[in-house]
């Protein structure tokens, strides 16, 4: 589990889809850093130049809707973005983000309580979201027990390795 994350908030609206997170023409790229150079290009071409490593994406409902492309969360992570806070996530993006280790926080109150540029501190272990600029604090929805176990085990890959070992 990651330690505390800290960065400035970049705020966007609802239904940020995978086509704007990483346009189709880049989907033949596999290198995370190269993908990261195009993160959010369809939504905000300035994003990768104005953000700093560790910064945090904040968005409204249904973040990551559309395609199953795992390069969407990989591009966000590859850009140096440390986490995404949203009111809700689309289903496949949610799974993919957990699988590739992009911290995500579901918290409508935090989204409403964060303005663009606010300094945010996140604790992935507890789900606590601190808005340092406004002196407020929020708590993200807890992961269901199965998913928490999966995250604590280090993600899906170690889980699969354990299942394989059990079968051997």
């Amino acid at each position, binding site marked *: 589990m990651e330690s505390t994350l800290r960065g400035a908030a970049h705020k966007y609206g609802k*239904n940020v*889809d995978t*086509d*704007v997170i990483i*346009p*189709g*023409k880049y*989907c*033949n*790229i*596999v290198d995370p850093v190269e993908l990261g150079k195009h993160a959010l*290009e*369809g*939504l905000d*071409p300035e994003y990768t130049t104005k953000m700093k490593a560790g910064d945090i994406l904040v968005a409204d*409902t*249904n973040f990551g*809707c*559309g*395609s*199953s*492309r*795992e*390069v969407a969360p*990989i591009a966000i992570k590859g850009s140096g973005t440390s986490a995404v806070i949203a009111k*809700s996530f*689309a*289903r*496949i993006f949610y*799974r*993919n983000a957990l*699988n*590739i280790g992009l911290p995500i926080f579901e918290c409508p109150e935090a989204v409403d309580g964060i303005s663009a540029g606010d300094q945010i501190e996140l604790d992935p272990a507890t789900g606590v979201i601190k808005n340092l600029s406004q002196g407020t604090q929020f708590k993200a929805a807890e992961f*269901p027990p*199965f998913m928490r176990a*999966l995250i604590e085990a280090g*993600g*899906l*890959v170690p*889980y*699969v*390795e354990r*299942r*394989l*070992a059990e079968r*051997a």
Partner: protein
Amino acid sequence: MGMTLTEKILARHAGLDRVEPGQIINANVDLVLANELSAAVAIGVMRGMKGASKVFDRNKIALVEDHFVPAKDAQSAKLAKLMKDFAAEQEITHFFDVGRGGIEHVVLPEEGLVAPGELIVGGDSHTCTYGALGAFATGMGSTDIAAAFVLGEVWLKVPASIKIVYDGTLQPMVFAKDLMLRTVGELGIDGATYRAIEYHGSTIDNLSITGRFTMANMAIEAGAKNGIFHADEKAVAFVKERTQRPFVVERSDADAVYERVVAIDASALEPQVACPHTPDNVHPISQVTRDDINVDQVFIGSCTNGYIDDLRIAAKILEGKRISPRVRVIVNPGSQKVWMQAATEGILTTLAAAGCAVNTPGCGACFGGHMGTLGDGERAISTTNRNYVGRMGSPKAEVYLASPATCAASALTGKITDPRVLELAGV
């Protein structure tokens, strides 16, 4: 308390008597699908897994080259080769290269790889297409697909179901695509997130299998985990023509629990158009055509509408005519088999004679990959499933989604056109 079709399939594959919405299960899969993009990442993940040298069953994996093929550049060729080499190394039975396959979701059903009651996961969000035949099918990312490759099982949260009941006879020039666009418009693009959509009603009973593919395909456009039809005689006959494999036809219980029931009057429906830039921005065509909306490109194809019935409709409208000099029309038959059938019926010649560019089967322009990418300020009307900003190329382009009939009618005039107007005019 009864169970829905989706719940029954999931319970059987998890070895349980019953499951409830929200429950997390470990389910065996009947088929795992990937294309060269999702496979490239999945293969990399699998290579890094300790103890994962072999796939769980070489006969239960389908690998289809379709997104960037024929390779548009060296990088795409690299990914296509990576998957081809993996297929050879793992002795994968169902590997489809260019010229022998087409778009994954068109290919798998026509090759008999999908049957009622089966559980299929795929590294593509439109894997939900197979619900047309009464299977549970859902899209996932590459790491989940890598896990399914080696384990032959996946973890799933059982979705609650939304029942949609369509009644009435469709008017001329109104099709499955119009029904589904209306549905996405009603539900909204996150209206069915984490849910199963179950299609019911007399309109559905009369719908062709390809029309059902179109509708199941776009379940994801409302955020759904899967979209599913009951396999009737028509569906069972379609599958039995293609495979000898035994399968189980399940039905939702009469007392199954639905989170929501939505009724749609199909008889009152006119052709529908999803306007930029979301698939739920759906309007009846009579409203859209109040203004002249000129188009630069018409695209007919994709896993939504690349079936033989779709090409037949387009050819019927375009036969003996020339498309507007203002537009280019790009046609991508969904699969090699669709392409050959269309060739046999003279459809390809009809389309080419009208001025359409007929491509080799594949995803092509749908996702802005190649073979019809839009430039700044261009506008397209397309039979595909998504119209997000930048979906088909430039973020400064616009995409309207409609049926093959509406797209073909628009090709003739160079602007978004109600296909019923052509019919009235005896076109």
